[in-house]
């Protein structure tokens, strides 16, 4: 999306928001086991970046990955079925919230290990280009990830070999409970610049601002430029993980949370639409999600006998653990 498309952008942001809210309900009801890392408040980043990507481009997400997968175009029904561990899920119920993947649309997976996906995506983009596909990639990660050596190594490899990967840092101010200032010496853009990458800071609460910054970077990358980094400043509206709904962790002052929540990407994107357009999108999203929830809840759970299906692509059948 080289041009602005406020309706599409709003639709994505709204879809993620409502998807997350439905997912939270399902966590509360016990239908989703293990909880989730809600993306609430950060929707503008996935929406803005993915709006600037082509369908054939590749992305990787994080533990907080629902937004990335949805924004890239995954079917919300199959995504929800994955969170519920159903056979109709994106990963046939084998992955769950933190591993949702959809290779068919270029989503090489959310990834539960902080900082791990950057190098994987770099290799994938490099390989696909080498095979003749003229595509780029975007890898999302948090402010905590910039302290992981493996991600910094990936910065170096991508920069050195000029692999067109957009490194998107979602700086929501915290790595779980660790404030970014307590964890990051120097700055986040500075870390990219150290490897010769261009880096920009953008308001992550404004999906259009994110889209513009991403589109500019991606245009440079498509024109043969190397990797770039975008630090998107954002705020996590909800818990780090839904276990925080049960166990209260004391690390964000209520006033800070209130200020953080006051800049809502859904309102910012929605405010750019006429009331009728917005209502139409809202209704469409609601219908989509109603259907998704129904589909997911009606889907069967996988058979325990197949617990180790796909363990080996070769089809090797592992010895069981029985006597």
């Amino acid at each position, binding site marked *: 999306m080289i041009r602005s498309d406020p309706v599409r952008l709003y639709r994505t942001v709204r879809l993620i928001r409502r998807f997350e809210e439905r997912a939270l309900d399902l966590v509360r009801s016990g239908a989703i086991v293990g909880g989730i890392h809600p993306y609430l408040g950060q929707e503008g980043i996935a929406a803005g970046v993915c709006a600037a990507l082509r369908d054939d481009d590749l992305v990787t997400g994080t533990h907080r990955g629902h937004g990335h997968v949805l924004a890239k175009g995954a079917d919300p029904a199959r995504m929800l079925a994955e969170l519920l561990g159903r056979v109709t899920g994106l990963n046939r*119920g084998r992955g769950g919230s933190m591993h949702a993947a959809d290779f068919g649309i270029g989503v090489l997976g959310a990834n*539960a290990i902080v900082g791990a996906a950057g190098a994987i995506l770099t290799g994938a983009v490099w390989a696909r280009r080498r095979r003749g596909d003229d595509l780029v990639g975007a890898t999302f990660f948090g402010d905590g990830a910039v302290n*992981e*050596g493996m991600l910094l190594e990936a910065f170096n490899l991508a920069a050195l070999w000029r692999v067109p990967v957009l490194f998107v840092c979602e700086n929501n101010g915290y790595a779980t409970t660790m404030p970014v200032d307590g964890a990051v010496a120097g700055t986040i853009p500075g870390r990219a610049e150290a490897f010769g990458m261009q880096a920009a800071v953008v308001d992550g609460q404004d999906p259009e601002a994110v889209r513009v910054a991403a589109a500019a970077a991606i245009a440079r990358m498509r024109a043969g430029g190397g990797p770039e980094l975008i630090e998107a400043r954002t705020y996590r509206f909800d818990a780090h993980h839904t276990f925080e709904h049960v166990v209260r962790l004391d690390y964000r002052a209520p006033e800070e949370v209130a200020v953080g929540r006051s800049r809502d990407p859904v309102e910012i994107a929605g405010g750019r639409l006429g009331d009728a357009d917005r209502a139409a999108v809202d209704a469409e999203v609601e219908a989509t999600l109603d259907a998704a929830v129904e589909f997911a809840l009606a889907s069967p759970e996988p058979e325990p006998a197949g617990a180790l299906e796909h363990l080996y692509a070769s089809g090797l059948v592992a*010895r069981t*653990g029985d*006597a």
Partner: protein
Amino acid sequence: MPRLSYRKALTRALADEMTRDESVFLLGEDIRVAASNVTAGLLKKFGPERVIDTPLSEQAFTSFATGAALAGLRPVVEFQIPSLLFLVFEQIVNHAHKFPLMTGGQCEVPVTYLVPGSGSRTGWAGQHSDHPYGLFAHVGVTTVVPATPADAYGLLVSAIRHVDPVVVFAPAGAMDVRADVDFAALAPVPIGKGRVHRAGTDVTVVAVGHLVHDALAVADELAGQASVEVFDPRTLYPFDWDGLVESVSRTGRLVVIDDSNRSCGIAGEIIATVVERVRLLAPPARVTRPDGAVLPFAPALDRAVQPGREQLRTAIQLTLKEG
């Protein structure tokens, strides 16, 4: 007698050792607010100089702990996820473990690595559900897996006082175990000493970590049919071979239940060492995770991959029939 939970036993061990010995300090992610709940109250009691939140830089903070230990302190490093041990494997094995020999005895590396919630936490899926204690038993790093609150207390205390690195696995399946405990009787548990939880004459069941409780339950169920001895090694490396050989020499039969992958796991090691030293009346048996297991997300699949009571019962019965 008062009830003590396994989790609180760990907290108490940390607090007692920090009180007793100024050189003990804690390092980890989100330990100030105690996201894992194990360090609850310790920040208040011991201050931020001894309860230190780290950036997400597992490799560096693990080696930082090595350095601090070389310089005379006693770090306890908490890891939020068992697979983070994969990430710092080099730092533990190649450095912390090897320094004493390689320097010709010039130093000690008294670090404790604490993994609260090892193994499956239902719903956390493939990258969060490993039980890699066998890896440490192979490389020869002292490894303990307490099953009960009193042992959790006593082994963590001993680990902290130990002059070599020790990995403490606190299985998710044991974290909520509670027991009547005489607080005055809480004491260090010697490293390398197993425990017979239940005496028996027909078969020795060796159970690791939380599975000790399953083994005891199965032993009770089978009480009419067979007299089952339940042996809890508590330390996997160095293993209490003499204690186990004594038991198996009496019973003549051996079944092992262990929540880690089958191939090259501790269950196999137990069988191998026992058959080297004892003539059994029937072939030994083990109940484990399958070879190469990755835990799928869907709860029924996750459970299907873990060893359970049903399998243990069958294994015991088979062993009793033969010979």
